[in-house]
């Protein structure tokens, strides 16, 4: 059951996203029936699945929303901003319920109350000229079935009592058991139930041939509750239920409104009974022939041309197969309550997926894929051990043949592991749309709240990256878009005064660039005020006044990445809750990415996130400092250089060197790590690192080989050591500390 609930939660979230996207589109093109259908389908799927877990408040609310969408589809009402807000409200509420289902395996205690409030609000919009969908299918006029409601079928002895009754005829879908439905129990709980009669919807086959998991019963019931109450209770079964008011005397004295219809109904019922006779194609063949002729006559009389045409074909097939079942079904269908429209049938049960085309995709729990990928990653690292053994054999035991053989096998294993790695990583690749699709809704709501006009243009939603990376971007992106809207984009009059279009523009794009994913958020707002940043840095005593004055534009902009820094004059509830760009930066860096910012006063801001496409194994450069080995993620290293001591000179009292006519500041790793200084070196081994402070040279004692490792994050108290990203196992089994080189450089500049 838990697995089913998990599945429902996953599918519901997809439905909610689809619904949100459809509603956003619908706001732009309110008459587009395709978008109404898309929204309807997502709510319908949510509702269908909810039946499995008896989530009545959710079922009722989504059903009421469907009713409103029906009115919208038939253009009996128009989509106003208020209605759109209300529909978003339903989507949000369902999202909240799904979250509570995930964490507490149940809906919140006040779910019924909230559902009723939503339904009441939705009711104001529904076109009341049309009956609610629950009563769309009529109880047969003749009420012939009521004659079967004898005293024996009444639950109490009030069959003769006065008062209005509501009749219910319920023909469950044959596959309803698979959706968790139990029609008998449903009828048992019908409000005001006072009489019940159950019969096979078709003649049941002998027990041996009975499909016990296909519901083949039909339920008739009378209730003392009002039609409205019964309709609400039955709302989610609209296509399978007919509800109608009945005067109390009806069971005994019903006279059909339409005599011809009633006679036709009775004739067909009688023929159905004939068709239920045993040995219909042998001993009772004359009865079958007579019944067919009667049916033909009745159909002709009622001018039901299409069934008349079909009847002979169905009868022929039945005779040929010696199976009367299709014929019985055909006749039963003719007198069954009105069929649901074709499009309703198409969107049948979302849970059993009976009507869906079989998919080539399968859903797999992510932890299983993660475990598989972790194992492949470990294998990728473990295979390096073979190379190490081969080298040892060659140097220590002088066994070149065995060494070569191991080397050959290493090459083979490497090729296989590399292929496995590629395929496994591909499995976990998902499109950026997964996180991008939340943003249009955010922009819509925020723009409304801030009374700004803004257009969000998204490109590259199909660009793929590792699921863990894409998901890690969700929060940073929300924050960046919020920032652009609340701080970047100006109010319309301010924009007009500055000669800009009244509607602000935020462009969000994702592209692949080599082995990286590049995400840009560019707005045409007021840009970042460098003077204001400097003032704030001064006010918050982030840097001494003298240093602030000497900062370049880029260095000034980079101050906003420092913890607690906020450029907004007022702390709004939109983007200023004490979290800022530092949170964005650390979230992006936690998946091996980097953030850069570019802004000009008045001309907007561009923020670029540079991320790896996937994280599986990390390439690290090993370096020696004070006779210890450390690892530096290769993604951080632009170049490794060997410089003579003479290349180092002082610039603004800092060690620097010249590279391609650029002055590069030089830091020493032993100083950053507080380790002893190397002695008597004639030259320097320097790693050129790209940071947000520009390119920085970091001197080490010596370089060792780059290796592939899996970086494990630090645990417990070690996590607070800002100098390290984590640890990794080397091929010979020793532990390597991986340096957080950018963090160390940041800390150096901050505390300088």
């Amino acid at each position, binding site marked *: 059951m838990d697995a089913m609930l998990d599945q429902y939660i996953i599918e519901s979230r997809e439905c909610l996203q689809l619904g949100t996207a459809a509603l956003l589109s619908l706001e732009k093109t309110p008459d587009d029936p395709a978008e109404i259908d898309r929204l309807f389908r997502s709510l319908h799927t949510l509702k269908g699945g909810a039946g499995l877990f008896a989530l009545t408040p959710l079922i009722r609310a989504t059903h009421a929303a469907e009713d409103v969408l029906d009115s919208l589809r038939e253009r009996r009402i128009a989509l106003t901003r208020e209605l759109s807000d209300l529909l978003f409200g339903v989507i949000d509420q369902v999202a909240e319920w799904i979250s509570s289902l995930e964490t507490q395996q149940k809906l919140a205690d006040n779910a019924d109350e909230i559902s009723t409030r939503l339904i009441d609000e939705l009711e104001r919009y529904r076109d009341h000229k049309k009956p609610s969908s629950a009563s769309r299918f009529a109880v047969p006029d003749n009420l012939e079935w009521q004659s*079967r409601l004898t005293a024996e*079928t009444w*639950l109490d002895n009030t069959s003769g009592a006065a008062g209005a009754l509501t009749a219910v005829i319920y023909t469950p879908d044959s596959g309803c058991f698979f959706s968790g439905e139990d029609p*008998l*129990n449903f009828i048992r709980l019908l409000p005001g139930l006072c009489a019940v009669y159950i019969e096979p919807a078709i003649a*049941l086959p002998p*027990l041996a041939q009975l499909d016990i998991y296909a519901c083949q019963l039909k339920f008739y019931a009378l209730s003392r509750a009002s039609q409205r109450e019964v309709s609400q209770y039955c709302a989610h079964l609209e296509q399978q239920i007919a509800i109608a008011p009945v005067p109390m005397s009806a069971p005994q004295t019903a006279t059909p409104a339409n005599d011809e219809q009633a006679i036709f109904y009775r004739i067909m019922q009688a023929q159905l009974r004939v068709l239920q006779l045993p040995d219909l194609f042998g001993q009772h063949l004359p009865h079958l022939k007579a019944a067919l002729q009667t049916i033909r006559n009745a159909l002709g009389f009622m001018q039901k041309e299409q069934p008349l045409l079909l009847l002979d074909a169905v009868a022929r097939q039945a005779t040929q197969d010696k199976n009367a079942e299709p014929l019985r079904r055909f006749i039963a269908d003719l007198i069954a309550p009105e069929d649901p429209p074709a499009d309703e049938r198409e969107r049948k049960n979302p849970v059993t997926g009976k009507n869906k085309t079989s998919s080539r995709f399968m859903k797999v729990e992510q932890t299983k894929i993660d475990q598989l990928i972790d194992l492949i990653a470990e294998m990728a690292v473990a295979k390096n051990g073979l190379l190490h053994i081969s080298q040892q054999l060659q140097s220590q035991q002088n066994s070149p043949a065995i060494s070569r053989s191991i080397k050959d096998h290493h090459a083979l294993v490497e090729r296989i592991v590399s292929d496995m790695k590629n395929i496994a990583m591909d499995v976990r690749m998902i499109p950026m749309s997964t996180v991008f699709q939340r943003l249009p809704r955010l922009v819509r709501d925020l723009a409304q709240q801030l009374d700004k006009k803004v257009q969000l243009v998204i490109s590259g939603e199909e660009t793929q990256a590792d699921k863990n990376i894409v998901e890690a971007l969700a929060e940073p992106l929300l924050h960046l878009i919020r920032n652009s809207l609340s701080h970047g984009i100006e109010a319309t009059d301010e924009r007009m005064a500055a000669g800009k279009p009244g509607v602000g523009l935020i462009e969000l794009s994702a592209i692949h660039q080599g082995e990286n994913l590049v995400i840009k958020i560019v707005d045409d707002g007021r840009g970042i005020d460098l003077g204001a940043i400097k003032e704030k840095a001064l006010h918050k005593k982030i840097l001494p006044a003298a240093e602030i004055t000497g900062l370049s534009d880029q260095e000034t902009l980079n101050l906003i990445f420092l913890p607690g820094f906020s450029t907004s004059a007022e702390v709004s509830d939109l983007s200023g809750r004490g979290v800022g760009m530092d949170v964005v930066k650390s979230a992006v860096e936690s998946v091996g990415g980097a953030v850069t910012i570019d802004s000009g006063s008045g001309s907007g801001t561009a923020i670029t996130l540079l991320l790896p496409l996937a994280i599986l194994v990390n390439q690290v450069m090993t370096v020696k400092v004070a006779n210890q080995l450390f690892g530096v993620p290769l993604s951080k290293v632009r170049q490794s250089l060997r410089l003579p001591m003479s290349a180092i000179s002082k610039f603004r009292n800092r060690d620097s060197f010249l590279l391609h006519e650029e002055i590069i500041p030089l830091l020493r790793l032993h100083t950053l790590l507080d380790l002893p200084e190397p002695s008597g070196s004639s030259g320097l081994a320097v790693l050129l690192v790209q940071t947000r402070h520009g390119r920085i040279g970091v001197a080490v004692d010596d370089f060792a080989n780059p290796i592939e490792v899996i970086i494990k994050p630090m645990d417990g108290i070690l996590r607070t050591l800002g100098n390290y990203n984590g640890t990794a196992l080397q091929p010979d089994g020793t532990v390597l500390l991986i340096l957080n080189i950018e963090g160390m450089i940041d800390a150096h500049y901050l505390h300088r």
Partner: protein
Amino acid sequence: MPITYTDSRATFSGNCKIDEAEGLRAHLERYPNAEVEMTSCEQIHTTILQILIAAQTPVIAPPTNVFLLRCLSPYLKQPGNSSPE
């Protein structure tokens, strides 16, 4: 066990859910003259009712639960009767 089987007799008690269906069908197929005792049965799944109707199994002790009794009443027959009604 909501349904217990003693020779040809099936005794229902409490709430008989859908997972009892296969067992009941097998029992009724094995014993064409099976009897059902339902006195202390409170609730049955739709498919259990469907099986009882299809097999036309005699209910020798009807349920005391009124709803269940009403649902079964058109199909209740005493042992030895040949028609369900």
